[in-house]
């Protein structure tokens, strides 16, 4: 059986799920110091789908691709600990300030460097921006088909993949030729935990930049174990056109960021009779809260 070459796009994001009081600075920007940096949750769902394909189709490889500052190498390591084969970190000061358009440009160049591949998988959206744009834009730029909101990959047969999509009002099963890009919905299974052996094997995996800062004496290890090098790609490595990058390549301009505090104004206490439930349903439908 032939394996597949899968690229998983992953992003390091501030953990916005457990937001405390100090999550936002006085000027309305995100206080990254107060929020731990995590693997974007839906990207983990995507990684799990990729790893399941690897379990199912021997010979399949999973490559992680992430873009961010140096510390985003954690994302690659996390992926390696869970079963990915290798990973690349797209990192360069010139990428700073990129919106979804500039980001997808950079990622699409990196993905092209990894051609030929069979699948690109990523989360539906990231919890810091919630745009759900990067995946689809990458697909457009590489000019491959895309299936969004995937929940389950049913099968791959004769170069075609069958996918269940989770939509607002139901489930849709679609078929698509490969290569393609899939964005995975959060309702897909959670990602598996780290594997002890992979963790012990890859815990010394580092980028070149990290090795320069490192004082520990394991540098000699790398000669025998090239897989411990997490490769970094800069603007030059990707031969990117700088006008499409960073702030200059980002048409999105943030006008204002503000803190919204939800407050419950009133509470309604209901009895448990059918009649009262009935009245509540009617009221909610009339007010367009549901339906």
């Amino acid at each position, binding site marked *: 059986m032939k394996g597949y070459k899968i690229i998983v796009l992953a992003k390091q994001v501030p953990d916005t799920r457990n937001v405390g009081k100090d999550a936002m600075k006085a000027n309305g920007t995100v206080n990254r110091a107060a929020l731990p940096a995590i693997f974007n949750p839906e990207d983990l769902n995507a990684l799990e789908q990729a790893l399941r394909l690897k379990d199912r189709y021997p010979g399949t490889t999973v490559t992680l691709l992430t873009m961010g500052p140096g510390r985003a190498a954690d994302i690659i390591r996390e992926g390696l600990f869970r079963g990915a084969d290798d990973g690349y970190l797209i990192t360069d000061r010139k990428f700073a300030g990129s919106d979804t358009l500039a980001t997808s440009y950079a990622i699409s160049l990196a993905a092209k460097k990894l051609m030929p591949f069979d699948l690109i998988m990523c989360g539906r959206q990231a919890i810091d921006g919630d745009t759900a744009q990067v995946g689809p834009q990458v697909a457009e730029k590489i000019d491959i088909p895309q299936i969004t909101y995937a929940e389950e990959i049913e099968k791959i047969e004769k170069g075609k993949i069958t996918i269940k999509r989770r939509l607002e009002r139901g489930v849709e099963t679609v078929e698509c030729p490969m290569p393609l890009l899939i964005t995975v919905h959060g309702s897909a299974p959670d990602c*598996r*935990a*780290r*594997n*002890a052996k992979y*963790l*012990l*094997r890859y815990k010394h995996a580092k980028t070149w930049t990290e090795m320069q800062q490192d004082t520990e004496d*394991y540098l000699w290890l790398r000669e025998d174990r090239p897989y411990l090098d997490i490769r970094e790609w800069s603007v030059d490595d990707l031969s990117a056109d700088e006008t499409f990058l960073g702030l200059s390549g980002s048409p999105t301009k943030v006008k204002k960021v503000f803190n919204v505090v939800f407050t419950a104004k009133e509470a309604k206490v209901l009895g448990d009779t059918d009649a009262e439930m009935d009245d509540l349903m009617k009221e909610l439908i009339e007010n367009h809260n549901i339906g």
Partner: protein
Amino acid sequence: MANFFTDNKHLKFHLSHPDMQKIIRLKEKDFTEKDTYDYAPIDFEDAIDGYEKVLEIVGDISGNIVAPNAEDVDREGPKIVDNEVQYARGTQENYEALKQAGLVGMSLPRKFGGLNFSTIPYVMAAEIVSRADAGFANIWGLQDCAETINEFGSTELKEEFLPQFALNGATGAMDLTEPDAGSDLQSVQFKATYDSEKDTWFLNGVKRFITNGDADISLVLARSEEDTQDARGLSLFVYDRTHKAVTIRRLENKLGIKGSPTCELVFKNAPAKLVGDRKMGLIKYVMSLMNAARLGIGAQSVGIAEAAYREAYKYALERSQFGKPIIQFPAVYEMLSKAKTKLFVIRSLLYETARFVDIYKTYGHIMTERALEPEERKEMKKYQRLADIYTPLLKLVSSEYCNEIAYDAIQIHGGTGFMKDFPVERIYRDARITSIYEGTSQLQVVAAIRGVTTGGYVNQIREYEQRDYKPELEFMKKRLIHMTRQYEKVATRIIDEKDEEYLDFHARRLVEMAGNIIMGYLLINDAMRDDEYRNAAEIFIKKAEASNVEKMYYIKNTEQRDLGIIKSEG
């Protein structure tokens, strides 16, 4: 995202014990495997870092998968479908997660796919899993069976079975008990017959109360020598369930650990392989297996105690009566401080015992590769002796304390604790078995009394006594020296009577007196490394001294001639 390793700093404290240097160096044979296996540690720091990171995985799975599943698993339990045990849905999910994470066969050698972890992190993992779900910890903990095959099996046997654990996540079971052979295992009647034509052993008979009886790989104790009646006629076998020669007659309906299937099994001409040598089954292999299992129950007891204490503490903070949180009332905070102190002390005893086991077992493995130096041989003997007297003490005390802590944890909850609304109800039921299986508390005393009669406990107490302690801990050491004197006096008096029944009668009291002194020293040793344990040491020693005095008076007042009236009223 709960993590049962990182949220409990006491685990890291015990993992960072100074003896770990020695343990890891021995276990890793001076780090020679790094050239063969890329997941082998490079040096001590690398090994400890690896232990911590792997325990983080255990903590992650325990906190986020096993613990949230525990309630449903307790309610649903396993069932028999087409003569196979089907675990509760949550149990399946738990095992799959641990298996996928490579946490089955942690302590096995790398050449069989294991992680070559020493006993300490393995025991710690067992504690963490038990805190999440004690019943599930049994299923996972039965990977001990692999360790027994590794210790006593032939190379062929190891090559056949060990990778099944380490690489495929096989489950294990140890089939010892029979309807008429429980505590008294030498009366096992289950038959093993050798068919010389087929060059195979066949097993026939009934086994009862077998935890995880439908495991992939089972170790079975059987009578292989015809016309024998005692332990010398018993051998140990390994049975692979793919032979499908066993009927699962029933699953027990239990008080606690309901997620763990307890099976009655009927073997009909089940092909099996001999482990090690004939006739050594009970005498050597099961004794070793039981010791490992008892250490495991120690870990389970500490895990349950941790869970119970946390539930009680949380509730006492949140529950208000008479206008204030109940934790502010002396009656409640005393129960909590007692529980916490007991928890600390059984954890210290657990890891002290595990270190002894670690060192002697590792020497045992080294011995199969090269001859030990005289110095090493001496050390191995010393630690084996210590492990032999500490293991039953640990099993006895940790299981009893775990029950007491769970009892008080319900008490702190009041009426609410009696309802199924809070986890403490399940924890209490799960705790109950710990002082019964793998040898009841009463049988632990039978094993531990050797520590009293041979002077093993006192020797070790003297070693603790000779260590240097900070001036602020000296007053506690003085109390312990005083307690030692009292203990020696009563112990000598009873031993000198040379009356077996009289010794048996007071045995538990003597073992507990010695245990109290040992545990007192363990806590002041902990306090040497971290001030946080000073209060616990002080509270414990105060209680221990009072308890020893009570025992001492009772022993003094109950002489041989009193046994008659006690027996007649029994």
